[in-house]
């Protein structure tokens, strides 16, 4: 009992799966830094989370507007700075300056109640 409570206290609640429409993305700014640090994409009924950092320069975020991580037809993740395209399932860049490089995958957890959680240690480790 104590153990599971502690675990919950070490995690941050990000929402439920139903917060995401199919083929939709959302950015998170847990520290209220004014800029999202990671994002989650729902695609083909699966969730994928990546650091909001383009491998081209490694120090700038992807979208031209908040939450606009996907291209028009929601086929790829886009970096709007120079148009890089990334595969949603694995974060691999298939077109653009960082061709062949990958977005950094962020581990998230999904509970049986369809709740989305992120562990504090992950937040620290990935500097989110």
């Amino acid at each position, binding site marked *: 009992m104590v153990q599971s409570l502690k675990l919950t206290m070490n995690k941050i609640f990000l929402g439920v799966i139903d917060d995401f429409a199919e083929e939709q993305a959302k950015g998170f700014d847990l520290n209220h830094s*004014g800029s999202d640090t990671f994002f989650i994409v729902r695609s083909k009924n699966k969730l994928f989370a990546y650091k909001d950092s383009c491998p081209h320069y490694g120090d700038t975020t992807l979208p*031209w*507007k908040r939450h606009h991580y996907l*291209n028009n037809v929601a086929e790829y993740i886009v970096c*709007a700075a120079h148009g890089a*395209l990334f595969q949603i399932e694995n974060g691999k860049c298939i077109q653009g*300056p960082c*061709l062949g490089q990958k977005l950094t995958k962020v581990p998230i957890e999904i509970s049986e109640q369809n709740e989305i959680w992120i562990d504090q240690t992950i937040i620290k480790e990935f500097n989110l």
Partner: protein
Amino acid sequence: MNIIGPDKLIWGVEDLAAAKQFAVDYGLTPQNEHYYSALDGTGIEIRAKDDKSLPAALTTGSMLRKTVYGVKDQATLDAIKAEFTDREVKVLADGSLELVDDMGFVLGFQITIRTTNTEKAERINAPGDVNREINQPGVTKTDVPRVQSLSHVVYFVPDSVKAEAFFANRLGFVTTDRFTGVGPFMRPAATQDHHTIFFIQAPAFMQGCEHFTFHMAGPTDVVQAGTNMVNKGYQSFWGPGRHLFGSNWFWYFKSPFGCNMEYDADMDQHDESWQGREAMIGPDNSQAFLLQYREKWAPGPGGPKP
């Protein structure tokens, strides 16, 4: 050759509605379904990427389909036509010329559509050197920064030496400054702006537009316009700050054009007597200073406090 600078950039975008909204929010004025202009008439033409009227796209995914240069007069157009006997030069229905440069970019040339319909540069006062009219506040809350004129385009190119040679030898551009191993800042003969193009050496799969920008009346308008963009939810890429080469103030935003869109102001002017400089590219040489947006704030909890 009396080339002045870019008159118009033609885009084939993926998300037409987003690109048009972005253009309006940036501060351009729609003149018709496709054309969004600055005060002096220069601007961007926005079309869907599969629009049949567009020149062919590069294979790299670049959304920039054509750069149209404004030239002084018909004699300049004739000179350009006469220069390029080594390739096809199309004469389009509007009298403009179209050709493909040595990198594969489609270029257009037209008698410039630029008017002199721009505002005065931002006026600043200093002790003993007063430039603003008396009783004229320098800034108010209701000021609307207005986009003046298409300024410059920066291209990723697979061979910046070849790109520089083409613009220098065939079109009469002059190199004003250079980042070693990266590429030149160039200005055409009929402008004194520090640059209307800058080339960045990059792998062939990156060929395309790195950013484009319009001149604003001064640094206040750059920062005010950028702040408006942030408040509308758009995301800054770099800035605000002030470059060293060209001395232009900058603020770059990511955009639905697949490249950054910048605001710039107060660029250096040069003539033939200018001696070009060269430096290594990097944070220290790319800007005099770099600032970062912060939400409006003031000391004290929302009211007067000693």
